[in-house]
């Protein structure tokens, strides 16, 4: 029974991992920017939420919205002021610059908040639960999973139904044609990075409600995000969600078996998938489509 609970928890954490990967995949797919600071933005979202909650006792939904807005602005500015200068056929300059940015954010967080491991406490909501078929599930994880699914659906609708979403997809294919249609490429890219960082920060905040974090959590979150992108395929929303849930389940069940293992089991599962792909076994969810 405890295994079943671990799997359910894994699915819920996995929804957030899917969002991590989705943000990274957007930046990579549209701008070809490999954002090494993605993990730090995930952690930054958590610290921002914790700081807002400590200043005034807001509703968690209000905090999520505030963090989303701030994160969008940060991502927009990052792309517009810095990364737009570095993009091109060679992905290395942007990778190294975002690596530098990750070092800056990490150490700035250390000097502002210290190295303590923290968690966000939501009081009564934290412990509330319902019992379904003899399995007790927390209300909060359910809400978080629901938010993750809603965000996935919202990004899907944005990509297919709105002008800016179509511009994102067009920019991924051929930005020159996009510019002939009157779009400013730099602003399209800036909005896409804003969306990517927004997803990272919101998912990071929601994860912080479920598990603890420190300024050094960024690396682990980044690696998880990349694993989601590589397993789930670039440009596939469903792939990201399934890969996120897969890694979430593996990690939570792994932690159940060995509490000290950290992200070891999800890393091993990822490497196993790489090895299987190496021998050209087609995976159900590994089809590539942009």
């Amino acid at each position, binding site marked *: 029974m405890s295994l079943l609970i671990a799997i359910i928890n894994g699915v819920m954490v996995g929804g957030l991992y899917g969002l991590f990967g989705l943000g990274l995949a957007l930046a*990579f797919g549209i701008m070809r920017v490999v954002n090494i600071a993605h993990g730090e933005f995930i952690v930054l979202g958590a610290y921002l939420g914790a700081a807002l909650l400590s200043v005034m006792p807001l509703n968690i939904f209000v905090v999520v919205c505030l963090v989303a807005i701030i994160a969008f602005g940060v991502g927009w500015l990052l792309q517009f002021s810095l990364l737009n200068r570095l993009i091109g056929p060679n992905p290395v*300059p942007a990778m*190294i610059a975002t690596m*530098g940015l990750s070092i800056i954010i990490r150490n700035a967080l250390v*000097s502002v908040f210290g190295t303590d491991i923290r968690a966000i406490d939501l009081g009564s909501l934290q412990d509330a639960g319902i019992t379904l078929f003899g399995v007790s599930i927390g209300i909060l994880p359910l809400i978080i999973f629901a938010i993750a699914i809603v965000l996935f659906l919202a990004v899907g609708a944005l990509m297919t139904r709105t002008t800016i979403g179509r511009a994102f997809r067009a920019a991924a294919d051929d930005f020159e044609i996009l510019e002939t249609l009157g779009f400013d490429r730099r602003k399209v890219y800036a909005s896409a990075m804003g969306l990517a960082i927004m997803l990272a920060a919101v998912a990071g905040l929601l994860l912080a409600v479920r598990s603890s974090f420190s300024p050094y959590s960024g690396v682990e979150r980044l*690696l998880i995000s990349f694993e989601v992108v590589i397993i789930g395929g670039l440009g596939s929303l469903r792939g990201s969600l399934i890969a996120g849930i897969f890694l979430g389940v593996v990690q939570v069940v792994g932690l159940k078996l*060995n509490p000290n293992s950290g992200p070891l089991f999800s*890393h091993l599962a990822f490497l196993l998938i790489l090895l299987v792909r*190496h021998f050209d076994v087609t995976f159900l969810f590994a089809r590539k489509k942009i």
Partner: protein
Amino acid sequence: MMPNRHARAALLGDYLPGVAICGALLAGLIWLPSDNRLPMEILLVFAMAQGWNLLSGYAGLLSFGHQVFIGIGAYSLFMSMNAFGLPLPLALGVAGLVTMATAAVMALFLHRMRDAYFSIGIWVMADCVRLLIGQWDWVGSSRGVMLESSKLDLTHFADMVFWLAIGLAVVVQFGVFILLRSRFGLGLMATRDNDVAAASVGIGASRSKVTALILSALICGLGGAVYYLSILYADPSGAFDLSWQIKILFIVIIGGVGTLEGPILGTALYFVLQQAFQDNGEMFLLLQGLTAIVVMVFAPQGIWGVIAQRTGLQIFPTRRRPPGPSLAARRPKPTTEDKAQAARAPAKG
């Protein structure tokens, strides 16, 4: 074919400046400071940086996981001395072999991955190895492992480790130099610059990249082995720490990635800054991050890259020059590669 007088003079001219500068730097490191500790660390970090540069600068595979080779080198040295009682020279050999074997196994996963996929793939594997070592009781799990120093000659220990570091740094610098001037090095750089064109003239891209990965791992493994030998203790969170990778990356990036002179310049700059910010570690890291961004925006080719572009200066010449009458007349002229690059550049941007 016998090398003629010009060729011999050119060969001498190619090696002389590098030998002279390295000799002068080494003399400074040996005689100027009163204590050997810092010079030893400088030499080892330099060697590791040059090892990373071989893979990331010359093979074009940006690695974020080289800390794994440093840790594996240290641990295999410690375990072969502690558990199997090997003497130090043999244990160093084992450390080298184990690191190379690790890199070969990792290459199985990595050899089809390009660009960012390679960078992250090797990073995930490095993290995996760190976590596994932290779980493994035989190597002391998360407590780490002490080197049993009973078999070591502790009277001359500091000097011996220092000379090991000097030996490694010199062998790495000139070994990589000779390697890059060879047929293999030419193929490696050709693959980095244009893999399709390189493949069309019969260069095995995959094989030369895997070789570069294994050699690069060997250098970092030996560097890690000698470094942790000097402090007699290694633990997973230190030996497999990402900060090793950040340090090496910073040095090569700021000095000039894909140049043999860059890591020398970068190492010097890194340690000058480190000494200046001795009391403020966070500020030093913030500064490193900021420098990485500034260098990428304004001079992605690094300090030596800018110097070489402006002056055509090469202390360790790895580019092939067309044969000509005299050394002096040839040197200032831009090479064909420079011209070709200049012609290509505007079209790309």
